[in-house]
């Protein structure tokens, strides 16, 4: 087997086993638990009164804004990881300052983005 992928065999096994165990316990619970279903019990909870309106009504746009910001910053921080794990090797090669300034420019751009959304008021929630 390809040694590069070997560490992921346990991941696959754990994934399958966790799913199977969950399903098995749920099935067991289904057998052990009572089954007395009637209308009121099956309805969605709304403090005891009948539900009004659609649950998937409009949500604040801020949540979507957060999702966008997350994409921006999280994907950028993913780029920093390879650099981070290789920084010591750069040092060994004598490229320490170069690597530092490279990443400083990258993170400076990112910080500019953060300052921009901050000044724009995209982070205001109150």
């Amino acid at each position, binding site marked *: 087997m390809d040694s590069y992928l070997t560490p992921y065999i346990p991941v696959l096994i754990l994934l399958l086993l966790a799913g199977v165990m969950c399903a098995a316990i749920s099935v067991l619970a289904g057998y052990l638990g009572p089954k007395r279903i009637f209308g009121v019990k099956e309805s969605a909870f709304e403090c005891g009164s009948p539900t009004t309106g659609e649950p998937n009504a409009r949500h604040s746009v801020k949540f979507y804004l957060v999702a966008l910001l997350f994409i921006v910053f999280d994907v950028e921080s993913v780029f920093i990881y390879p650099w981070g794990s290789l920084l010591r090797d750069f040092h060994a090669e004598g490229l320490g300052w170069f690597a530092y300034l490279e990443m400083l420019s990258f993170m400076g751009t990112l910080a500019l983005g953060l300052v921009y959304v*901050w*000044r724009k*008021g995209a982070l205001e929630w*109150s």
Partner: protein
Amino acid sequence: MAENVTTQRQTPGAIGAYVKNVRDTAKSFWEGMSVTLSYMFRKPITTQYPDRVPVPVRDTIPPRYRGFLEVDMDICTACQACERACPIAVINIDILKGDGKITPKLRMERFDIDIGKLRFVPDPLVPAVPYKPPKGSDAFPRRALGEITRALIAAWDAPPPPFPSKEQLEGDSGAAHGKPKPAGLDPTAMGRQLAAKALQVKEDKPKLAKVFEEAMAGTDCGDCGYADCKGYSEGLASGKDFSPEKCAPGGADSKAMLETILVSLKSGKVPEAPAAEAPPPAETKAPAAEAPPPAEAKAPAAEAPPPAEVPAPGTDAEAPPPATPEPGDRGPLR
């Protein structure tokens, strides 16, 4: 936690506020966590009721505690005087007239005290309703105040009784099934019986008074204005009183019966069973319900106190204390 930065401009003031927020956060963590940790290392103040308290529960009641709500079921005549006297309607008594036999004696079905409404305001040593001993006894077996409650609490402290065996359970339920269910009284039929009796002893006033008394609830509650049932019945028999509706515990049934007697005494004959008052079903039902012969049923019913329907387990488990009536302490019922 982090307060909102009021301005977005990166002026020194804004930076100062920013740093202050961070400092406040750290400080509140520090203070709050030191407080909670210090509580973790102290002894819990809650009492683990009931098995890890240092003294038995019965000893934790303060000696001057006045919140005792006691009903001595053995001496209660279900006169409902306490229910009527209660200003905030805390007491709820359901009564059933008769116990399946020809007697207007009241039987208690329910005696509830709504503790939620209770205010514990009146001094329990000053009774709201004067207690009069039941007929035929000049003293009454009143227990000392708080005794029933203390007995109950002692029963809680005691280990629970063993589970009943299967045979016991079956035996009990069989006995309960075998018992005839007591039915209500048929006032019309009984009124006519009493009226017939009254006509026979029309001239003998004491005997006539006894007949009148039969129609009353017999609780000696004093609601009619007379001292007891005897006084009211004597008043009716001697012709000094003509109102049949004064017996409050007896209610409509007593009123109907007394009315029947009074009418028949006036007219000289027992009124025929009117269709409106006593429909045929009541007539046919009456013999079935009144199956035991009146003569032998009446004797125990008159003497035995009404059976307590909801006896507290503690009072049963504990042997009732010897009835030592204290002459000076016969006032309060509760």
